[in-house]
């Protein structure tokens, strides 16, 4: 009864193409937005902001970027973290070279740099496919991280080779740097993530989205029905890298506060890939579900033994943590290879029918 679709007829194509053809979905979304914009900011603790809310959104955004490339356009990439790095370093250079610049603008612009780099590294995808391409993206991964290390101009010749987010304000309110409060940062992240998610939803359900999906499902056929593969793949690389770059800038400016090159190394790429795959390739919602799982799980696992008063050492917790994450990845792949988003879709379908069987 919760999901009763009967009686909801669409009389125009426009209505049929609306974002949420089923009314209940829209209601659900409204509730989620209410929580995100009002309830969490009022109630969340500093710890919750820093270890859950902010990182979940940033990771989800990065996964969304990757999902556009891998889930929608079918180009497997293992170099996401490096493109996040490009965004982060670009943002750092912008705010240090032009301290008067609006930091939010800087974050949004930094994606453009990673989009450019993404397109450059996307060019081989025109010839290289599948796992070969995946390994080729590792070339970007390792080369860029090396570059972050060696190109001292990028980190303003800091002795440590790391970048440090300065205190940045908009109209006197600190939004980045040590002085910024978590709530403010949370709102900035939430705003940008909401905006980009909306744009990505539009892109993926429209013509470009179909072009990408066609390229993913069968590139030869796609080309034969009139899709310019080069354009399709490169736009996917560009859009994906843009989103990933912005996520990278948020990652450092709104959350971490500082970064060294190897932060953007392969473990981060894999982390984001996990989120995208566990969440569900080719799904927008999945990125959020995946991020909640992958970011939230270790936090929960870290708290549980303490809460239960179990005498487990922190190293043991960490080992178990790695093991459990590995095990869960396999577990989720087995129960639903298409990810949490598909699992949700199945539940939703059951709810639509409920209480009637079939």
């Amino acid at each position, binding site marked *: 009864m919760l999901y009763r679709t009967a009686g909801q007829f669409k009389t125009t194509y426009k209505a049929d193409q609306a974002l949420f053809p089923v009314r209940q979905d829209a209601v659900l979304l409204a509730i989620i937005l209410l929580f995100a914009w009002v309830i969490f900011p009022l109630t969340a603790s500093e710890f919750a902001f820093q270890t859950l809310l902010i990182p979940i959104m940033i990771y989800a955004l990065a996964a969304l970027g990757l999902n556009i490339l891998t889930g929608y356009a079918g180009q497997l990439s293992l170099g996401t973290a490096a493109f996040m790095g490009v965004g982060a370093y670009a943002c750092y250079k912008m705010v240090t070279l032009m301290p008067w610049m609006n930091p939010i603008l800087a974050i949004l612009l930094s994606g453009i740099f990673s989009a450019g780099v993404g397109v450059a590294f996307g060019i081989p995808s025109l010839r290289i496919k599948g796992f070969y391409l995946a390994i080729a993206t590792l070339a970007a991964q390792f080369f860029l991280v090396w570059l972050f290390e060696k190109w001292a101009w990028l980190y303003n010749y800091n002795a440590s080779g790391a970048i440090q987010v*300065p205190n940045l304000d908009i109209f006197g309110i600190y939004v980045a740097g040590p002085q910024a409060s978590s709530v403010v940062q949370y709102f900035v992240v939430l705003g940008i993530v909401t905006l980009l998610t909306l744009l990505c939803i539009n892109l993926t359900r429209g013509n470009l989205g179909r072009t990408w999906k066609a390229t993913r499902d069968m590139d030869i056929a796609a080309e034969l029905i009139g899709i310019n593969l080069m354009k399709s793949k490169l736009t996917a690389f560009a859009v994906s890298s843009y989103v990933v770059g912005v996520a990278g800038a948020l990652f450092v400016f709104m959350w971490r506060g*500082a970064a060294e090159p190897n932060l953007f190394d392969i473990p981060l790429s894999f982390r984001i890939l996990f989120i995208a795959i566990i969440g569900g390739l080719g799904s927008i919602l999945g990125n959020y579900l995946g991020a909640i799982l992958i970011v939230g799980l270790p936090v929960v696992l870290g708290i549980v033994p303490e809460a239960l008063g179990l005498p487990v050492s*922190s*190293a043991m917790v960490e080992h178990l943590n790695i093991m459990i994450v590995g095990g869960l990845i396999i577990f989720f792949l087995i129960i639903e290879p298409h990810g949490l988003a598909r699992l949700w879709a199945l539940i939703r379908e059951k709810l639509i029918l409920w209480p009637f069987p079939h």
Partner: protein
Amino acid sequence: EGLFTPNLSYRTGPFAATGIPLMNGQADYMNMLNARDGGIGGVMIDFEECETGYSTEKGVECYEKTKGKAIVTQPWSTGITLQVLPKTNVDEIPILAPGYGFSPMMDGKTFQWAFNTPAGYWDAADMIVQYLEGQGSLDGKKIAFLHLDHPYGKEPLPLLERMAEEKGFELVPIPVGLKEMQNQSAQWLQIRRERPDYVVMWGWGAMNAGAITEAVKTKFPMENMVGVWWAGHDADLKIVGEDGKGYKSISWSFPNLDAPVVADIKTHVVDAGNSKSNEEEMAGVFYNRGIIISAILAEGIRMAQQEFDTGEIDASQLRWGLENIDMTEARISELGLDGMVPPFKTSCADHTGKSGGWMLEWDGEKFVKVSDHLTPNTEAYEALVAEKAAEYAEANAPWPVNDACEM
């Protein structure tokens, strides 16, 4: 309740090998105090570990998780230190980073909340160069600087470059990437090509064992290789054993198995079955350095308790305590740490304490002291410290400094 002094430890990952003995030493000392004295000043110490795996990201997570109750944070990696440094300034929690961290942290006026007691990286670099100078003038000599390509490895570079200019030696920095730690043949080929007179090593984790085995393989004269204190782990040298004879490492700590503290740990912790360590490890340099690190923290707590006349001190009181440590020879032996650490004294302007150190050498089985007490020539780089500290403060403006503190 108690004194919550969490440790951001790493017993996992590629750096675990060097991390574990240190963490064990730290934990055993605190456990000993709890068992023997019922904590410090009658308050038990809650010495909890939060695992980071040497990952900066995890480190920050641990910091955020513990900062609510913690009176100190022990970040245990240069990367994490850099990351939490600006945050501690806002959260007002002292960072205790003995022998590591950001070198300009020694300027307590700018870095009110950060301590790299009892010695910093620049002290280490200075002492190593001093020691090498003692072997003969460095003018015209060539020193290869083999370092981890990571904030930690790059820390001493500005000072070494300056000294190279002053003393007329040629400095050849050779970075080792995190991924090459175990496969350093390219670096050692470069060393063979460059034919340096000395190799100064700033390694950590698996890099040390890799470098020492490669050195042996390429027949580099071991006596011309000197490491920083984090590159002097017994287990790394045991891999090559006899072949490693002559390898040196500067250190501000030394294992004295006859020291009373060791006996106390044995009775109160090891015999009670509360230690994760083993006999071999407990004889090593790193385990004993862990003891010293905890002892420094305990001393800071004691000073604060006395000053503020309360057992349950808070974070800012502990800062005062850490700024007023005076480890005289007498105090050292009172604490049962005879011969394990040189005397040092901190102040609000000097967060390091200038302990100096000893040069240790591997004799094929263990490290032995081969020098007298060396002291760093801090005046030589005071200006550099001030310059870098000011640079940092400016980049992180607004950055409150301790104006009350007179240099």
